[in-house]
C-alpha cells in the first residue's frame, strides 16, 4: 500500500503514462510491484487475448452465438483488476470486460460456460454471451442495457460506506455509456453521498459506430467528473501500469473515505463492436493499424524484457499453458451440454409461484424439459 501518497493530479491534459510505447519507464516514481505481480499482469493480458481469439473461432464454428472482443482493452482491464482486492471489492462490469473478469479470478471454464450457456454455467445459461458475472467473486452480473448497472454500483458503494468495512466498488463502462441519463444520475448520487466508488470509462472512441465527438460536446470524459464533485483522471489505457497505478490511487482514496473518482482510459478496440458489426463502414483501416502498432501486450513485454523478467522461453511456456487451459474448458463445456429447457422457469423469484408452476407444466405437455436448450 502506498498510503497517502498521491502520484497523479486530476484533470491533466496529457494522458497519464507509466511506461512509453517502447516499454521504457517514464513515471516520476519507482515501480513498487514485485516480479510475480509484474509477470501476472502480462499473463492475464495474454490469456485474455488468446481466449478472445478462441471465442471468435468458436463463434465461426457456431458454438458461441456472439462475441464482443476485448482485444485492445486488456491493459486497462487487467491493470484495474490488479489494483483491486479481488473477491473483497465489488465490480460492476459491462459486456466488454472479459479480461477484467478473468484477471479478477473468474475461472476460464466458467467464463466459457457463460459464453456457451452450458449446464456448468453457475448463472445457468440465462445470459447471451459476453455478459460476465460471478457472485462468488462479487462481480455483478452484466446487463446489456447500457449504464443500467451504474446506479446499482453506487448503491453498492453506499452500502459499503454504511457498513464501513473498507471495501469499494469499481464500475466499468464504455464511452457511449456516458450519454445515458442513468450514468449522470448515478455519478451525481455518488458525489452527493461521498460513496467509495471508482468509475472506469474505457473510451475506445466509438459507441458501435458513433465517434466520441458525436457522443458529447465535452473534450473528454474525465472532465465530466468536475460536475459531480469528484476527481477525473485521463489515462493511457494501452499502458497496464498506468491503469494499475491510477486505479490504485482512486481505490485508496475511496477506501480512506475520500469519495468517488472517475477514470477515463483511452483504449481502442481492434475488432468490430461485435461479430455482428462491420467496422469498415465507420473507421479507416489505417486508424486500426496505427492503434494495433501500440499493442499493450507487446509494449508491456518490452518493459518486462528490459528488466530481465521475460523472454521467448517464458512466452512459449505461457502460450502452451493457456492453450491447454482453453482446450480443457472447451471440452468440459461441450461435454456438459446446453442449459435444459426446464431451467427457464427457475430463479424468476426465490420460490416458484403457482402461475409459473402451471406454465412449466404447460410446456411439459409439448416439450421434454430435460432436453438441451438451443
Amino acid at each position, binding site marked *: 500500500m502506498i498510503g497517502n501518497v498521491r502520484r497523479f493530479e486530476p484533470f491533466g491534459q496529457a494522458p497519464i503514462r507509466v511506461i512509453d510505447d517502447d516499454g521504457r519507464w517514464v513515471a516520476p516514481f519507482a515501480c513498487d510491484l514485485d516480479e510475480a505481480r509484474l509477470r501476472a499482469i502480462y499473463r492475464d493480458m495474454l490469456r485474455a487475448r488468446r481466449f478472445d481469439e478462441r471465442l471468435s473461432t468458436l463463434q465461426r464454428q457456431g458454438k458461441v452465438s456472439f462475441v464482443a472482443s476485448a482485444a485492445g482493452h486488456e491493459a486497462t482491464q487487467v491493470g484495474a483488476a490488479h489494483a483491486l482486492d479481488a473477491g473483497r471489492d465489488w465490480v460492476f462490469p459491462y459486456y466488454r470486460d472479459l479480461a477484467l473478469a478473468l484477471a479478477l479470478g473468474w475461472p476460464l471454464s466458467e467464463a466459457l460456460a457463460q459464453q456457451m450457456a452450458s449446464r456448468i*454455467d*453457475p*448463472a*445457468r*445459461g*440465462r*445470459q447471451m454471451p459476453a*455478459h460476465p*458475472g*460471478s*457472485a*462468488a467473486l462479487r462481480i*455483478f*452480473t452484466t*446487463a446489456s*442495457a447500457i449504464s*443500467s*448497472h*451504474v*446506479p*446499482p*454500483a*453506487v*448503491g*453498492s*458503494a*453506499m*452500502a*459499503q460506506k*454504511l*457498513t464501513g468495512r473498507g471495501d469499494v*466498488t469499481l464500475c466499468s463502462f464504455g464511452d457511449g455509456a456516458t450519454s445515458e*441519463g*442513468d450514468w449522470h*444520475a*448515478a455519478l*451525481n*448520487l455518488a458525489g*452527493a453521498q461521498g460513496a467509495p466508488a471508482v468509475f472506469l470509462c474505457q473510451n475506445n472512441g466509438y459507441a458501435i459506430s458513433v465517434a466520441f465527438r458525436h457522443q458529447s460536446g465535452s473534450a473528454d470524459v474525465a472532465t465530466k467528473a468536475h460536475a459531480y464533485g469528484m476527481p477525473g483522471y485521463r489515462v493511457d489505457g494501452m499502458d497496464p501500469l498506468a491503469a494499475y497505478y491510477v486505479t490504485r490511487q482512486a481505490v485508496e482514496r475511496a477506501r480512506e473515505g475520500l469519495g468517488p473518482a472517475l477514470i477515463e482510459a483511452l483504449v481502442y478496440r481492434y475488432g468490430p463492436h461485435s461479430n455482428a458489426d462491420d467496422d469498415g463502414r465507420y473507421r479507416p483501416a489505417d486508424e486500426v493499424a496505427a492503434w494495433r502498432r501500440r499493442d499493450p501486450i507487446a509494449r508491456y513485454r518490452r518493459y518486462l524484457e528490459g528488466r530481465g523478467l521475460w523472454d521467448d522461453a517464458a512466452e512459449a511456456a505461457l502460450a502452451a499453458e493457456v492453450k491447454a487451459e482453453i482446450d480443457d474448458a472447451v471440452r468440459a463445456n461441450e461435454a456438459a451440454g446446453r442449459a435444459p429447457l426446464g431451467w427457464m422457469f*427457475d*430463479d*424468476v*423469484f*426465490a420460490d416458484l*409461484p*403457482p*402461475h409459473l408452476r402451471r406454465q412449466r407444466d404447460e410446456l411439459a405437455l409439448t416439450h421434454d424439459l430435460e432436453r438441451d436448450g438451443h
Partner: protein
Amino acid sequence: MALQTIVQTVARTLAEEMARDPSVVLLGEDVGKRGGVFLATEGLFDRFGPDRVIDTPLSEAAIIGAAIGMAVHGMRPVAEIQFADYVFPGFDQLVSQAAKLRYRSGGGFSAPMVVRMPAGGGVAGGHHHSQNPESHFVHTPGLHVVYPSTPSDTRGLLRSAIRGDDPVVFMEPKRLYRAVKEELDDDDATIPIGVARLRREGDDIVLISYGASMAETLKAAAALAAQGVSADVIDLRSLLPWDQDLVLERVARVGRVVVISEAPRTLSFASEVAATIAEEALDLLEAPPVRVTGFDVPYPYAQDRAYLPGPDRILHAVQRVLDY
C-alpha cells in the same frame, strides 16, 4: 388502540421493521426531514438518523438503482417514489436490473427490496399525479406487485414485502390514505403476497377489485344489498402473483362476475382477470365477465370523477351481467 389511517400504518410499519431489522433502510426524495410529502415516513429520520433514512437527489433512477445495489449487499432497502407517475425515470432500473437480477445470475444475486409508490386518481392531480401503472410491473416477470386497500392489509403485506427475498412494487392507494381507518392488532402477523381477501360474501354476483377502487366497489355492493342483490367482493391485494384459486372458486359458485380497476382498460389487470375467468371457467358462467375500468385516455383532469369507476358505472355493469 386509536384508529389508524393507511398512511399512518405505512409509517408505523416501517418503524417497526426498522427496529426489528437493522438492515432495513429508507431512501427517496423528501423521506428524511420532511417525512415524505404524504408523511408516510414521518418521525423516522429523527428516530433512525440520516444513515437509515436517506434523502436522495431528485432522481428516480438513482433511488431505485441505489436500492438495488444496497440490496445486493444484503441490506433491505425500502425506496419511496413520490408519486407512481414519476417512476418512469427509474423504470429501466426496475425492469432491466431488479426484475431480472436473480434470473440473470442463476440465483447468484438477488434484490430483496421494496419500491413504495402512492398511486391512483381522485385527488385533482391531473395525469401526472393520478395514474395506476401496475400493468407495466405485472408485465415484467421478476417483480412482485401488491396494491392493498386497508390499513391492516397494508401492514401485513408491507411486512411480507420487506422480509421477502424478491423485489416488490408496493402501490399505495393515495385516495384512501386518510379515508380508510382501522384499529390494528398489536401482533406481528404477515399477509402472504399472492393471497386475496374476501371482503363480503354474496350469491348473486362476484365483484373483484383492488387498491383504491375497493372503496367504490364496496359502496356498489352496499347499494346492491339495498336492492336485494347480494354481492361477493374480492379484494385481490396482490397482483403478482395473484390469487387465481380464490377468484375461480368464487366465480364458479356464483357464475356472474364484474372486475373493477381504475387503470386504462386495454391490457389492464382487470383484463387479465377476465381472460383467466373466461379461459378457465367459461362453462360455469351465466354471463360474460365484464370489466369496469378507467378509459383508454391519458388520466383526465376536469373529468376524473367520471373516468374513475364509481358506484354508478359499477352498478350499471352489474345490471348488464344480471340481465344477460
